[in-house]
Each structure stands twice: as structure tokens, then as C-alpha cells.
């Protein structure tokens, strides 16, 4: 102990002890109060809430009101009481700590003795340096590891953000199971469902100024068919009364890699059939399985071309006898190419072998002419090929062509392809109706609806919502489960192109080439409406971070430069 000032030392020691106890107690007390006020505010008393709910039932009850008033007062007192308590407590604690520290300093001072430094105790030596260098290196590694750890920890939840439905509806594999399916294999994307998977398309561009336009390439001949994308090439058809052609553009820079005229095909008519201007000769969109691309034209010519533009086969199974001209797009699955051949001679569903082009099967359909395109869905684990027809909607086994079911609900000039969501089929047409059909056996109509029906643009279904647009410029969102309208919006310009769901947004291009980007949810929220700078009726192709859009004259590649 200390010789020089024993009393002083003793006093300091006691003071320190007392202060310590005081501070410890006080801080614990405060911490609890603090946490109380933080977690559950005294104002948030369940008891009071219960009483208030009771008073709703019996307003007349006087002693209940008395209770409430009493409790309310109590609670508010408690709250402000706790605030004051904290403030006072803080001050007291401060005083306590000051005393403590002072006392400790005095004690320390009185007790301290001269430390006799030992020789060579703490000099800088080489191994100290070595250790330090090692330590610094290790710390660096440690910090990097820490950062990486946090990064991994944070990045984990992002995986779950992808909609669970994706794999349920994932595009069908081509003949060779090893390779990935083409990113945008045909009309309205994978299986014709109008949904783009794993894409992050841009939301602003401008065809005029060329902002976010990666490239722009003139398309030699006109056509209403939409672009498809496979092995880094964009395929298009175009044609006029002279000749119909297939074009392939390079995804990288948009240069026209090759063009293949549909000529010299056995059974092809001498003179092209009568078509109207708003259908043209190349209205049907191509399809591809990644190994070959397939095209069909108004005169019934069907071609299969290799990615480098060599013709593998070409057939003509009759000229579609069709008031406007053939417009139904192709679809392929498991080595079969499906053609919806609904014309005045009565409807057919053709399936050709993708190698060779011979008829695998040919199913008679009792329908009137129709311009809709088939879709391929997965229902109860089975693939089904679904055709919108006039007046029958029917489902087929894509392997054998056996008709699985049919449902009579269509009418008018059917050009609108079906939409599909989770076991529910949605078919609509102007002058007919929109009906939601549950594919049980037999199919049940859940509900029907008669307003704002689409005429050209095909509806798209996504997460229990149906989006449909029509050529009058209205876009409507309905709840698929019960058909209630969630929102509707009127645009000045009408729609021929169809809505596509990409990255949780609807991309819908109007006749003037303005793409309306709308959140695929409610309420109606528009992300923007970038303009292509020229009219467009085709359906854009969504691949990765890019959009390929066909205007009347040009093919555009849209994406961040």
C-alpha cells in the first residue's frame, strides 16, 4: 500500500468503490429503461387498445370510459416519466463517472512506482519487423476474407428473387439435349407464351437520336413477321409478290450475314396467292430449334435452313386458301415442326419432322380460317399444344397429335393467340369473348368477359394477371383467378404487336413504334415509353440485355451501348 498519503489513498479508494457501485447500478437501470422505451413504447399498451375496442361495442359503458381515461393518463405519465428518468439518470451517471475516474486517477498516482526499464527490453529488432510485416499481410488477407464473406452472405437471398414459375415454364429443349435452347426461338418467345426469361432489357432508348440503339439495319423486303434469335443471329422473313426471303443478321453489329430466297420449291404455286396489304407475304414468324431455322410464307412454302443459310429442306403442302393470307406462326418441339393450317378448306394441324420435312402426322380440325398461332404449355407435367381456332379451342398431344380436349367459345376473325397461366387457358377475340378455361377434364370455363377484347394483339398471362391490348389502344389488366379488372389504361395509338413480359415489366409496342413499358403489377405504373422512330407491328425479341425490334423498314438492336 501507499506510504506517503495513506488517508488520501483510503478516501480515494472508498470514493472509487462507491462510485463504481453507483454507476454500475445506475447504468443497468438506465439500460433497461432505454431498451424498454426502444422496444415497446409505453404508449403502445395492448390493454388500452383492448379497452378502446370494447368501448366500440358498448359506448354507453361509463366505468369503461373511466378505466380508459385512467389508464391513458397512467400510460402517458409513464412514457414521459421514462424520458425524464433517462435524462436525470444520464446526468447522475455522468457525475458518478467523473468521481470514479478522478478517484482512480488519484489512487493510480499515489500507488505508482518507478518502473526500472530492463535493458534491451523493447528495441526494434529484425524479427520484430518480420513479425509486423507478417501481421500486416495476414490482416490484409483477413480483411479481404471478411469482405468476401459478407458479399457472399448478402448475395445469397438474390437467388430467391427469380420467380419460381420460371422452370415450370422454361422453354423446351431442342433435339440435341446438350445445347441450351435458343434464347428467342419463335413467335412470342419460348413456346409462344409471350414471356422472356432471365432477361434485363433496357427501359429507355430513342430511335431518332440513336441513344441506346446498338445498331440499326435496313431489312431488304417488307414483312409483318417478328425477329427470332438463335446462335448470335437474328432471323427474319420478308417478301413481296416477286420473292420471299429469309434474312440472317449478326447480333454483334447487325450486318446482313445471308439472305435466302424461297425459290425452286416443288409444289410451290406459279403465281403468289391473293393477300391483303396488312398481312403480306411474310406475316408468319419463323421458329428454330438452334440447329435449323424454319420459315413459312403466304404461298405455303416451308423452308428449313442451317444457321449459315444453307437449305436443308423445303416443302410445300398446299397453298393456304385464306382470305387475308397465311399468318399463323410456326412452333417446334422435340424434332417436330407444327403448322396451324386453318384455311377455307377446313383446318389442319400439320407436324413435320424437322429433319427432312416429311409429315409426321396431319390432324383434321373442323374450324374456319384463323390467323392465330399455336402455343406449347406444360400441364400436369405433360406438354400440350394448344390452338386457338374459329370456333374451337383445342389441345393436342405434341408427340402424336391426338386431340386431348376441345372447347367451343371462339368467334369472329380469330387472329389472337391463347395465353396460359398455371393450368388456366385464356382465349379472347373481338366480337367473341374473353374466357378463362381451367384445363380440367373436361375443361371448365371459370369466367368470361366481354369488354375491351383484343383483335390482333395476343394477350399475355403472368402471375395470375392477364394483360391484353387492342388496336383501339386500350390495355387491360385482369385477375386471372376471378376476372376482376385490376386496371385499364387508354393510349392514343392502337396495338398490333403483342405484350411481352420481361423482367417483371410489360413491353408493348404500339403501331407508331412507341414501346410502352409498364410494371407487370398493379396499380398501373408506366416505366417509360421510348420510341423506335418508325412504325412497328412486329413483336420484339428479348435476349439478355438486348431487344431486337423490327420496324417497317429497319431491324433495331436496342441495349445499353
Amino acid at each position, binding site marked *: 500500500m501507499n506510504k506517503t498519503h495513506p488517508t488520501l489513498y483510503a478516501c480515494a479508494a472508498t470514493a472509487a468503490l462507491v462510485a463504481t457501485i453507483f454507476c454500475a447500478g445506475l447504468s443497468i437501470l438506465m439500460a433497461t429503461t432505454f431498451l424498454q*422505451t426502444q422496444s415497446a413504447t409505453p*404508449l403502445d399498451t395492448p390493454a388500452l387498445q383492448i*379497452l*378502446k375496442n370494447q*368501448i*366500440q361495442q358498448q*359506448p354507453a359503458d361509463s366505468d369503461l*370510459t373511466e378505466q*380508459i*381515461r385512467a389508464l*391513458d*393518463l397512467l400510460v*402517458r405519465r409513464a*412514457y*414521459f416519466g421514462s*424520458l425524464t428518468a*433517462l*435524462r436525470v439518470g444520464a446526468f447522475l451517471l455522468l457525475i458518478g463517472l467523473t468521481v470514479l475516474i478522478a478517484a482512480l486517477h488519484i489512487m493510480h498516482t499515489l500507488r505508482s512506482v518507478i518502473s526500472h526499464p530492463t535493458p534491451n527490453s523493447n528495441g526494434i529488432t529484425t524479427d520484430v519487423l518480420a513479425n509486423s510485416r507478417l501481421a500486416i499481410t495476414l490482416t490484409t488477407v483477413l480483411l479481404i476474407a471478411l469482405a468476401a464473406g459478407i458479399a457472399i452472405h448478402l448475395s445469397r437471398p438474390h437467388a430467391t428473387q427469380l420467380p419460381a414459375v420460371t422452370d415450370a415454364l422454361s422453354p423446351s429443349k431442342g433435339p440435341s439435349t446438350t445445347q441450351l435452347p435458343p434464347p428467342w426461338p419463335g413467335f412470342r418467345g419460348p413456346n409462344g407464351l409471350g414471356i422472356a426469361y432471365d432477361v434485363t432489357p433496357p427501359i429507355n432508348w430513342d430511335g431518332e437520336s440513336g441513344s441506346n440503339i446498338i445498331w440499326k439495319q435496313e431489312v431488304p423486303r417488307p414483312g409483318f413477321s417478328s425477329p427470332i434469335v438463335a446462335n448470335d443471329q437474328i432471323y427474319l422473313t420478308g417478301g413481296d409478290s416477286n420473292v420471299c426471303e429469309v434474312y440472317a443478321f449478326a447480333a454483334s453489329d447487325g450486318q446482313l450475314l445471308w439472305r435466302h430466297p424461297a425459290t425452286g420449291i416443288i409444289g410451290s404455286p406459279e403465281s403468289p396467292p391473293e393477300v391483303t396489304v396488312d398481312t403480306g407475304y411474310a406475316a408468319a414468324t419463323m421458329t428454330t430449334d438452334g440447329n435449323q431455322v424454319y420459315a413459312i410464307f403466304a404461298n405455303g412454302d416451308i423452308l428449313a435452313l442451317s444457321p449459315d443459310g444453307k437449305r436443308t429442306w423445303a416443302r410445300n403442302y398446299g397453298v393456304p386458301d385464306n382470305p387475308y393470307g397465311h399468318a399463323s406462326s410456326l412452333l417446334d418441339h422435340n424434332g417436330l415442326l407444327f403448322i396451324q393450317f386453318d384455311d377455307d378448306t377446313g383446318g389442319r394441324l400439320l407436324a413435320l419432322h424437322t429433319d427432312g420435312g416429311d409429315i409426321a402426322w396431319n390432324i383434321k380440325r373442323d374450324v374456319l380460317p384463323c390467323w392465330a398461332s399455336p402455343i406449347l404449355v406444360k400441364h400436369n407435367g405433360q406438354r400440350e399444344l394448344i390452338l386457338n381456332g374459329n370456333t374451337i379451342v383445342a389441345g393436342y398431344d405434341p408427340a402424336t397429335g391426338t386431340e386431348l380436349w376441345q372447347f367451343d367459345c371462339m368467334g369472329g376473325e380469330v387472329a389472337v393467340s391463347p395465353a396460359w397461366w398455371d393450368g388456366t387457358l385464356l382465349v379472347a377475340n373481338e366480337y367473341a369473348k374473353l374466357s378463362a378455361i381451367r384445363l380440367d377434364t373436361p375443361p371448365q370455363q371459370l369466367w368470361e368477359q366481354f369488354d375491351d377484347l383484343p383483335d390482333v394483339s395476343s394477350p399475355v398471362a403472368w402471375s395470375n394477371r392477364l394483360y391484353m391490348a387492342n388496336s383501339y389502344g386500350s390495355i387491360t389488366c385482369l385477375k386471372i383467378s376471378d376476372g376482376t379488372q385490376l386496371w385499364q389504361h387508354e393510349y392514343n395509338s392502337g396495338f398490333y404487336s403483342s405484350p411481352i413480359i420481361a423482367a417483371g415489366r410489360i413491353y408493348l409496342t404500339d403501331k407508331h413504334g412507341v414501346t410502352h413499358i409498364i410494371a407487370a403489377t398493379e396499380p398501373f405504373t408506366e416505366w417509360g415509353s421510348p420510341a423506335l422512330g418508325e412504325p412497328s407491328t412486329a413483336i420484339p425479341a428479348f435476349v439478355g440485355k438486348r431487344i431486337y425490334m423490327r420496324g417497317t423498314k429497319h431491324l433495331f438492336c436496342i441495349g445499353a451501348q
Partner: protein
Amino acid sequence: MNQAQQTNITRRGWLRTALRTIALVGLGGVMVGMVSRTKRLCTKVSSTCRGCAKREACGFAPPRTLWQLDPTKCIQCGLCATSCVLEHSAVRCFHTHAQCGYCKLCFGYFEPGAKALSSAAENQLCPTGAIRRTYIEDPYFEIAIDKALCIGCGKCVHGCKMFGNGSLYLQIDHSICLNCNECAIATACPADAFSRVPYAEAYTKRANGSSEA
């Protein structure tokens, strides 16, 4: 050896002086730059300086900035009451009488579903009873906020905004606000309603985006 050391030392000393001068010049440059920048901006941002008495002069006295809540952005999430560094938040409810409807059935005052339009506890909306309601004449009642009791939860603001004229609004009481360099509420605010504004217009923002007359 010693000689070497000496020259070594002088060299270091000289180098140090040179660097020091550079550092000083740099620091000075930064300061001058900042001040002139403030001048320039202050002449530019005249629209923010609305209602600022010494707007013209402000170029010469770079503005102190204070935190301000923008009531038009406010969504009354209640975080003002809980996330201030002060236990009793510096955000309080303000009331613009000029905008008040003096409504008998005031939705800033009465609990939703209140049975009687009396000031009894069970009818009051305010969790701390910070709103005073005084009769003026039929059918008008005056509403006044007791700042000492208000905790800035914005419950009344929500009611008034929803049903009434939005004469009640949340704002920072600068006699309480510590003007932290980073406002804790601002970091928590979901509506991003907090921003720094020149000293002169600490209170110019009011509900409905109109500025105090």
C-alpha cells in the same frame, strides 16, 4: 558515418519543408475554392433562397444549412418519433391556422370511430394527448399543438391530410434539433423527405407545398 547522417538529415529536413509548403498551399486552395463555390451557388439557387432575408448578401456569408422535413413528401410512417438521436424527437407537429378548417369533426384530433366529439381520452387520436382543442364558435374549434408533449409520430398529420386540409404537418423544431452532421432520421426516412436547406428557410416548407406567407 556521422557525416552521412547529417547530410541525410538535412536532405530530409529540406524535403519536409517543401512538402509542407505544398500541403499548405493545397489546403489554402481547397478553402478558397469552397468559399468561392458557395458564393457562386448561393447566387444561383435563388429559388431555394425564397423568403431568405439576406439572399443578396448570402454570397458573402456562405449559408449555414439546417435539416428540413419536406411535408409534401412525408408519409407519416412514424419513424420521426423513433429514429431521432434524441430520445424525445426533434421533429414535432406544426399547425398552419391559415389552412385549418377549424372543423368540429377534426380528424387530426379524433380517434377513428370516436363515439363522442368530446375531448375525452377515448376519443383522442394523439398518443400523447399533445393536441388541445378549444371551442371558438359554432361550429368552429381551434386546434393547437403542445410542443412539449408532441413526439412527432405524425398520426394526427395523417388524419388531417387524409380527411381535411392538411394544415397539420411535421417539421423539425430547430430549438431542439442538434443539427447533426448526418441526421439519423434522414437516413431512416423512407420518403427521403429530409434535406439540408439554407438557414433562412428552415421553416418555409409547409404542408401542400405552399410556403409560409
